[in-house]
Each structure stands twice: as structure tokens, then as C-alpha cells.
């Protein structure tokens, strides 16, 4: 879902760069006081994992593919501030080293694929911090992952609309419909993969998720 170079107008990308830049700065300030000894390696490998997973495009509809976003998953595992920092690192490497996404669109891409899903994930985090999880946690996480993708997809179309990039023959509603229908399949995969990966990490690295930053991160991120 990376916005390619040249599809956003300067006022739109500059605004998004300012918003996302300020969010990253705030996230760094918050994380600096909270991140724990066991969270740092987890943060590093989760970033590496999401970067790798984003390279794996899976088919959704004929002639269409999608890949994991990961911001929602990271929001659950690491809390919003750390999740935003991890997504910013991934998107920066993708744009600057692999020409994936426009450099000027980096703030916009971080907003829709990093900041929005991280906040949603952080809101679901408390469900996973309880001693036991059941069907409610899985269902909320699955649909939350799908909603995160659809919100991001809608956000991209809104930014293209505000940039006056959509062809004159296409209405905003039509564009959102096309984008969101395609992203329903991608969202379902995002939700399912999120449940599976959170379960796996929680089963193997529970301490790194819970302590010491866990509850503090949770409070500050909602």
C-alpha cells in the first residue's frame, strides 16, 4: 500500500510529513523512558520480521496481491510509541534503499501504515495482557486488523483526493469503494496473521511483552 512518488501534492505530503514527524518525535520521547531490557531485542526482531513479511505478496483477487502491514500487530506486542518507531524504521529503509514508496510520501505512508494501525493495536493490547485469552480476544483482534487495513486504505484515497490526483471522472466515493473492496481480502489476512503471530510471540516471549514497559506503555498509548 506504499504511495509511489508523485501521487501526492506538496501541501498534502508536507502536512503528512509534519504530522508523522511530530508523532515519531513524541514516540521517541515516550519510548525513551519506558523501553525495557528485554523489549529491545524483541523490537529489533519484530521490525526485521515485518520488513521481511512485507516482501511476501500474496494473491487476493485475480491480478491483485497484498502484503502484511504489521503496524496493528506491533501495536499489540510493543505498545503504540515503540510500534510507531519500528514502522518508521521499516518504511524509511524501504523508501531510501529499495525505492519502495516515494521519499516525499514517507510521512503519508507512515501515517496510514504505521501510526493509525499502531494506535488501534495498542487499544487491543490490554486484552492480550490478561492472563488468559478466548474467542473474544481473537475475534476483536481479527476484525481490528481488518479495520486497520481498511482505515489505511481509505486514508490513502482521501490523500489522493485532496491532492487532486484522482481522475475527474471518478468520484471520491467510487474510489474509496474500489480501494476498500480490494483491501477487504488483504485485511482478513492481516487479521488472521496478527492473531497467529501474537499468540506465538506471547507463548514464547511473554516476559518481553509484559515487562517492564508493558502496563506503562498501555496507559500512554490509548
Amino acid at each position, binding site marked *: 500500500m506504499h504511495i509511489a512518488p508523485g*501521487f501526492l501534492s506538496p501541501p498534502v505530503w508536507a502536512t503528512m510529513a509534519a504530522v508523522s514527524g511530530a508523532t515519531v518525535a513524541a514516540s521517541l520521547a515516550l519510548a525513551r523512558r519506558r523501553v525495557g*531490557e528485554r523489549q529491545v531485542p524483541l523490537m*529489533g526482531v519484530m521490525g526485521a520480521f515485518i*520488513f521481511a513479511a512485507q516482501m511476501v505478496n500474496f494473491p487476493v483477487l485475480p491480478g491483485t496481491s497484498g502484503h502484511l502491514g504489521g503496524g496493528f500487530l506491533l501495536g499489540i506486542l510493543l505498545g503504540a510509541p515503540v510500534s510507531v518507531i519500528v514502522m518508521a524504521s521499516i518504511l524509511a529503509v*524501504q523508501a531510501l534503499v529499495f*525505492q519502495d514508496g516515494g521519499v516525499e510520501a514517507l510521512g503519508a505512508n507512515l501515517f496510514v501504515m504505521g501510526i493509525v494501525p499502531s494506535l488501534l493495536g495498542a487499544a487491543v493490547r490490554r486484552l492480550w495482557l490478561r492472563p488468559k485469552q478466548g474467542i473474544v480476544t481473537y475475534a476483536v483482534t481479527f476484525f481490528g486488523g481488518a479495520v486497520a487495513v481498511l482505515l489505511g486504505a481509505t486514508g490513502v484515497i482521501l490523500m489522493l483526493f485532496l491532492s487532486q490526483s484522482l481522475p475527474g471522472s471518478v468520484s471520491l466515493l467510487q474510489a474509496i469503494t474500489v480501494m476498500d473492496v480490494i483491501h477487504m481480502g488483504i485485511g482478513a489476512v492481516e487479521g488472521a496473521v496478527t492473531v497467529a503471530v501474537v499468540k506465538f510471540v506471547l507463548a514464547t516471549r511473554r516476559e518481553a511483552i509484559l515487562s517492564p514497559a508493558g502496563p506503562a506503555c498501555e496507559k500512554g498509548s490509548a
Partner: protein
Amino acid sequence: MSPYNRKTLLVGVAIAVIIGGGVSYFASRSPDGLEKTQADLGLTQPPHEGVTAPAVVFHEYGLKWLGEGFWSNAIAGVTGVLLVLGLLLGLGRWMKAGKSGRDADAPASRQP
């Protein structure tokens, strides 16, 4: 480094390298959801001026000189994985240093 953290790193990096360096070669080459939407809507040419990073070593997810083969993708994937990991471990070091008045390497359980 504690054995706990060493294991987190080794297992996590192994998984990421296998996915980014190997599995990704077999990924779908179809346009992604946004590209498909833009094609359906007739928005294929960028209407504004954009900035593309220069292809210094990699052209998209492949080595510039190697084309699109398995190893080209693998080198790009593993390099990306290590770049993200290194960047985040560096940032993590800086974050831990911010916990003033406490030993950054103290066991997690002793910190509030």
C-alpha cells in the same frame, strides 16, 4: 547479553531471514491493492513531482547488477532485514540509556 535476549535475537533473525531472503522470492508478482486500484481508476501516471531514492546498490528488491533472480532477491531481503534490525537495536540502546538513575542492564523484574 542475557541468554534470553540472545535467543530472542537468534530465533527472530532466523525467521526474518528465511522469510525475507527465501520465501519472498515465491511471492505474487501481481500489482498490490493500491496499484490495482490506481490502474482501475485510471491513475497510472504521477500528476505531481515526486522523489524516488537513487538506486545505489539495489533496484527495488534486487541487486542492481543481478536482475531478478533468487539470489538477487535473497541478498536484498537479507540486507533489508539486517538494516532494520541494526537501526532498531541502535535506537533501543539510545532508549535504554534514557532510563536515568537506573542500571539499563538490570533485570526487568526490578524496574517499576
